């Protein structure tokens, strides 16, 4: 699988990941090499094989729906870049 520069730009947009225009050729080359490498998987017959999501095949535990945590907003928000009155501030979204 060989990617084009435009593919890399599209993927970067999907990931909301800024990459320098100068770095796109290198990313394109590296990603194509990695995809070529993982293509070995296509040679394996996996018909009827159940995908393994958890090594021990454990499923998610459930807990009673009760309040166990206290509100610790101030503590968690002190590491935020910008807050006001308990809210996270971002650039204006709706004009």
């Amino acid at each position: 699988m060989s990617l084009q520069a435009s593919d890399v730009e599209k993927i970067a947009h999907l990931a909301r990941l800024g990459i320098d225009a100068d770095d796109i050729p290198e990313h394109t080359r590296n990603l194509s090499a990695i995809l070529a490498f993982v293509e070995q998987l296509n040679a394996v017959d996996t018909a009827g094989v159940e995908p393994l999501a958890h090594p021990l095949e454990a499923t998610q535990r459930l807990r009673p729906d009760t309040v166990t945590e206290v509100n610790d907003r101030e503590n968690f928000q002190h590491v935020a870049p910008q807050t006001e009155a308990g809210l996270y501030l971002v650039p204006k979204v709706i004009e």
Partner: protein
Amino acid sequence: MHSKSLVELAAGLQAGEFSSEELTRACLDRVGRLDGALNSFITVADEQALAAARAADACLQQGEAGPLTGIPFAHKDIFCTQGIRTSCGSRMLDNFTAPYDATVTAKLQAAGAVMLGKTNMDEFAMGSSNETSFYGPVKNPWNTDTVPGGSSGGSAAAVAARLVPAGTGTDTGGSIRQPAALCGVTGLKPTYGRVSRYGMIAFASSLDQAGPFARSAEDAAIMLGVMAGFDERDSTSVDRPVEDYRAGLGDSLKGLRIGLPKEYFGEGLDAGVAAAVEAALEEFRKLGATVTEISLPNTHLAVPAYYVVAPAECSSNLSRFDGVRFGYRAGNPQDLTDLYTRSRGEGFGAEVKRRILIGTYALSAGYYDAYYLKAQQVRRLIRDEFLQAFEQVDVIMGPTAPSTAFRLGEKADDPVSMYLSDIYTIAVNLAGLPAMSVPAGMPGDMPAGLHLVGNYFAEGRLLNIAHQYQQVTDWHLRCPEGYE
């Protein structure tokens, strides 16, 4: 004092030969004098360490000490530590002071262990050489022109250089075992779910597992005993009692069945490392073990499957870094998309970006079945192959890494060649099995590691096997020049 093992230090503390404060000051002094050349620490927490040491001394005086009370250790900078910067080796978290403790942090603290500081690592644990850290590479104390391995390279180098008797690491594809091998220390990756992932910054959640570094299996057993255990805050934590990992260390290896996968001894394995493994097997034969050749025919698929599964999970986990709630935020964002895009673009380094891009591609519409689903199917084949092998043998052995430490910069421009340095360790994470690396030779005057893989929850047996080996060999006691 720095040449003593963790067990010896604990005995010295409990006998009152020295205090934890004296020991902690001695370790801090070594870090101050020697770490400039190694760069193994990102943050040294002098004040907090001395306060913890004094609290440990009070416990010791009251006779309330456990095996880790007053013992200094190095903590990988991936574990959240309340009030102390947790950077994960990234510019993204350079300004991040965790608002809570990871479960592993809290457990070590409750056991009276003294955290000396946070160790350097590949950015977000993505790397096999420690060269992707925002804080610069760690140097291998055996030869500072070479890498310590990664991603937990800082903890491995700090233990190898005797800056601390023990350290913590995390292992997603070999990040404890490969640096343990390259630095000549003992490292253990437990069964998936044995140690809580709560507060451990996530890379690939179905593979990540924390474990200890130490200079011997016995010391590692003590560390693991404190780190392991069920945690309701980790949804994949296993609710199963923690065994006494020291209890079985002395068991005989008579009748132990060792499996040797023929696939691990093919092309790409350094001859010196292969000879070291062969010599180690001879020691095990003398201890009464039998060695049988086995086959794990899907071995070659582990690295490709991993480089779909791990980046896919990474791209999902790292989507939380958006410049809004914590971490790096780009200056003067024009709009919300610009805020996300530039915060992530400026906050993440090249390897992290590479993996986010690969993962995003593998999970994108139209490609999910071809990549992620396929890789998870192959993952089952790899897991089943191990389980079949464990019907015939008790432990699987081989080299931990295909070579001894490589030179800084040697593989930095070729991601696929770097990925192949984890060829023997990655399959174990896909299967979720426990495994160790123990020092087993010095080909070309650099450490080589022996890889021991056990069945689920066989940590105690692995430690027993490693301990018995360390009773008849002295590779684990070797010390790099200048750090004696």
